[in-house]
Each structure stands twice: as C-alpha cells, then as structure tokens.
C-alpha cells in the first residue's frame, strides 16, 4: 500500500501547513521536525523561533533540547528569554505556534501538566513551559499528535493551555483575540475546527486510513466534514529530506532521540 510510516505522513502533512512567510514558534519533537522539513522543502525563508531566544534559526540537525548550541550558531540573532516572551511572543510577532501534548480534547485544549488530580497526580508531566502563552499570543495554533484513546479524551484532567475552550466564541469570552487551533495534524488525518461550534472535524484522511480507524482512536464522537479529502501521499523529495534529517540527527546525538 505505502512505503512511508504514519508518523512520517503526520510530519509531512504538518510541514505542508506552513507557509514561506510564516514566523513560527517551534516546540521540540514532532513540531521541530515538521518546521525544519518545511524550511528544507517548500518554505526556505520561513522564520523559525525557539523559546530559548534564537530567532531565524536554521539547524542542520534537529535539536535534542530547546536550547542546543546549533540553534544559536545558525540563528540571525539570539535574545534573552524575558525578551523572547515579552517583545516577540506577547508583542504579537509570531504567526504560528506549534503545540503537542499528553492529552487533547475536541476543542483543541491541551494538557501537559498532570494525569489524575493535580495535588495527587497519577503521572506528573513536565508542565506548561511556554504553552499557556503560546496558545493565546500566536496568530494561530497548529497541533500535532498521534491519535490514541489515552491522548484524545472527552475531558482533560487539566487545562494547561487554551484551545477553543468550551467551543463557539469561548476564546473571545476569555479576552483572547487570536484564532487559536486552526489545524490538528495526526498520524491518521487532518482536522479543522467547525466554523460555528469550533469542534475539530476531519477534513482529510491520510492514504489508506478509514473513518473507523479515526473514530476508534478518539475518546469523543468523531465528526467528519461533508467533503473529506485524501491527504496527498508524501512525495519522494519530502520523504528523502525528512529521512536525511532524522539520520543526521541520530548520528549527531550519539544514538539518541530521533524525534
């Protein structure tokens, strides 16, 4: 059927969502792979910003951490972290923020804080980091996550960062003027919010993926758009560039993460 993995399809579909003139706040892991793939393919002039303060960075390998030396060496400039959050993020200069998380609900709210009760957690996760303000200050938010019943839940254990809240105009009710999550890119599909309710709706299925596969891996009742497209399969170039990037990264990190 295919010679690419669902994770590769997710990364490539996420990369395609980025434009050449975007200024993108990049998270570590899948978002970092997608943003750098976009830069190495159709969006060579995209501005990538990492919260460690590097602006306009162009790493040759994916960073293991948010503040690897490679990010600074290849950046146009590097600013302090308070400046990054005040002038650049809060100042409204970022067009796209890329987020992932441990739990997601159908309105794009994200949990990266705890599983279980906050004060007696089953699992203590790393916490929000930059996400609470990325979610409200970037022009729009793309979310990338692998679908699973554990991750795509009806109700979050904890709202770390705001998506569309309870749906409809709830973002505006919170005093937030930015668009919020406009795209959810998973290993199975591309979802976009319904214009009225803001509930994520499947608009494109990846090659070989059925509606049942999508519906069976989310904890809410999956909605599908009237016309559901098929995501174009990865091109030869997209796959080659992505695999080269991962191979360079793996070699550079001493056999470590290839996220």
């Amino acid at each position: 059927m295919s010679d690419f993995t669902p994770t590769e399809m997710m990364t490539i579909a996420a990369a395609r969502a980025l434009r050449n003139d975007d200024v993108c706040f990049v998270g570590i892991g899948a978002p970092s792979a997608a943003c750098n793939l976009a830069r190495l393919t159709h969006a060579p002039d995209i501005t990538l910003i990492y919260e460690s303060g590097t602006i306009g960075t162009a790493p040759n390998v994916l960073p293991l951490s948010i503040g690897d030396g490679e990010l600074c060496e290849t950046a146009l400039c590097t600013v302090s972290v308070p400046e990054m959050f005040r002038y650049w993020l809060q100042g409204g200069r970022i067009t796209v923020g890329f987020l992932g998380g441990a739990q997601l609900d159908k309105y794009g709210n994200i949990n990266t804080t705890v599983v279980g009760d906050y004060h007696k957690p089953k699992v203590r996760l790393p916490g929000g980091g930059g996400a609470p303000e990325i979610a409200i200050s970037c022009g729009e938010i793309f979310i990338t996550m692998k679908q699973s019943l554990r991750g795509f839940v009806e109700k979050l254990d904890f709202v770390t960062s705001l998506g569309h809240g309870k749906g409809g105009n709830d973002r505006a009710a919170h005093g937030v003027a930015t668009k919020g999550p406009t795209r959810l890119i998973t290993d199975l599909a591309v979802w976009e919010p319904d214009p009225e309710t803001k509930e994520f709706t499947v608009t494109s299925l990846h090659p070989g993926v059925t509606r049942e596969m999508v519906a069976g891996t989310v904890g809410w009742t999956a909605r599908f758009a009237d016309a559901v497209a098929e995501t174009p399969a990865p091109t030869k170039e997209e796959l080659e560039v992505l695999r080269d990037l991962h191979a360079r990264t793996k070699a550079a990190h001493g056999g470590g993460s290839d996220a």
Partner: protein
Amino acid sequence: MATFQSLAQAVADNVKDGDSIAFEGFTHLIPHAAAHEVIRQGRKDLTVMRMTPDIIYDQLIGMGCVKKLIFSFAGNPGVGLLRRLRDAVENGWPHAIEIEEHSHAAMANAYEAGAAGLPCAIFRGYRGAELTRVNPNIKTVTCPFTGETLAAVPALKPDVAIIHAHKASRKGDILIEGILGVQKEAVLAARRSIVTVEEIVDDFEGASPNACILPGWTVTAVAHVPGGAHPSYVQGVYARDNAAYIEWDKVASERETFLAWMEENVLKVGPEIFADRVKHLVGAKGAAA
C-alpha cells in the same frame, strides 16, 4: 566588587540552609559543578527555582536538599520526565516537596521584575489556563488606562543566584555568549550571587562591546571551574553532552542506581573533575563558535 574564591568557599559563605536559590541557565550554561558543591555541603530545606529545572534539580531533590520547587517546565529536554522529581511528587521520596508552578512567560517576567526592584510582574497570560486554579500566586490586575485584565505574579527575588559563564575579568565582570536565558535577571534579582566561569582573563579584548552581561560590582563571588556546566554546554568552548542526558534517564529511574551514581560522581569527588569531563567535547561539533 566580586570576591574570587574556591567554589567550596563561595558556597560555604553564600548558601545557607533554608535559602531560596536560583540555579539558572536555559539548557546552555547550567551550573552543574556548583549544584554538586551544594549537595556535598549538605544544604537542607532549600527553596529552589528555575524555569527549566533539569538534572541538577533531580539530583538536589533526590538527595533531600529541597523543601520547595518553583518552576515552569520540569523535564529532561528531548529525553523525558525527571524521575527523581516524580518520585518526590508522586510518592514522597526521599520526602514530600512543595511545588509552585508557573508558565515560562510568568517566570521570565517575574525575574525581570525582581531585577527591576518591582514587587510583581504584569503580563498578558494564563487566559483559559488552569494553573490559575491551583497556584494562589497567580492573580489579576486591571490596567488603569485600558481596563484590560492582566495576569500578575510576585517578583522572584532569590537569596542566592548561581550561574555559569564563559569568562570573568580580574575585576569580576562577567561575559556570556550565545543563549542568554534569564541569568542576568536572576543575578540582579538576587541578594547574593555565585558565578562559576570557564576562564579568568585580564580583559575582554576582542569581544563585542555589548557582550559583558554583568559588571563585577553586581556579583558576590566568582569561582574558576573549567567544565563546570557539563553535561550542559558552553557556546564555542564545549558541546552539550547529549549522551549524558540520555544516560541520566536510566540512572535516575531507580532509587538505588541514583544513590550509587551520586556517591561515585558527586559525593566522593570535587569540582576539579569537571575539566576532565568536557575534554572529549572540546572542538566537537556544536562547540564551534
């Protein structure tokens, strides 16, 4: 003017039981050698703060030095979770700790407010986010000009800030290059400070006129500890030891392996071993300026 001291003396003079301490560094320039010295000297009941607590906070917590942690992202970047922190939060080992959790924007603003001598930081944040429900130190204020509701958090003013830097001049002026994090703000917000450095030089000849981040009269103590950031890195001097970060995940996974590692690599040694630890990283890819 800063006092030049051995690391052991600088810690003995400036870090007391019950102090609040910021060991800052944003992936880059994390003061590992100084944290190990604090552990060796057996400090207790510390309130520790950092935007991105990583291995050294796992070590301080696991060794029972910490009463309270103030933070915004507690992970081993690119690798996973902090296992000693999790054991303390989830199981109370070696004892329960108190946590005060913020976002990055909140802590960056709070350090800046501390450096600026303000009582609190005001910023546009936390809208729709539940940390406001569990952290009573997140409040709101109304802008007197526009009526906009803004988030407010107390300024961070640690008793001691501890950072690692590229160079100190003989006057104690401090130079850092590369990712700057919140180190300048943490030192200026703190009552006392210790800076460990790779090198002590007569002057910063050849450096950009904008490169000195702290004049010597704002710093309490300077200690010469080459390699003192390992396994973190020093831009242009030695690369980040990513393999060591990955290895830490295994070391910290069990209490016994953790305690054995600490005995062997922290309690039985001194800060002079840090220079050896970075030898194979000097000139490696990623260390180039």
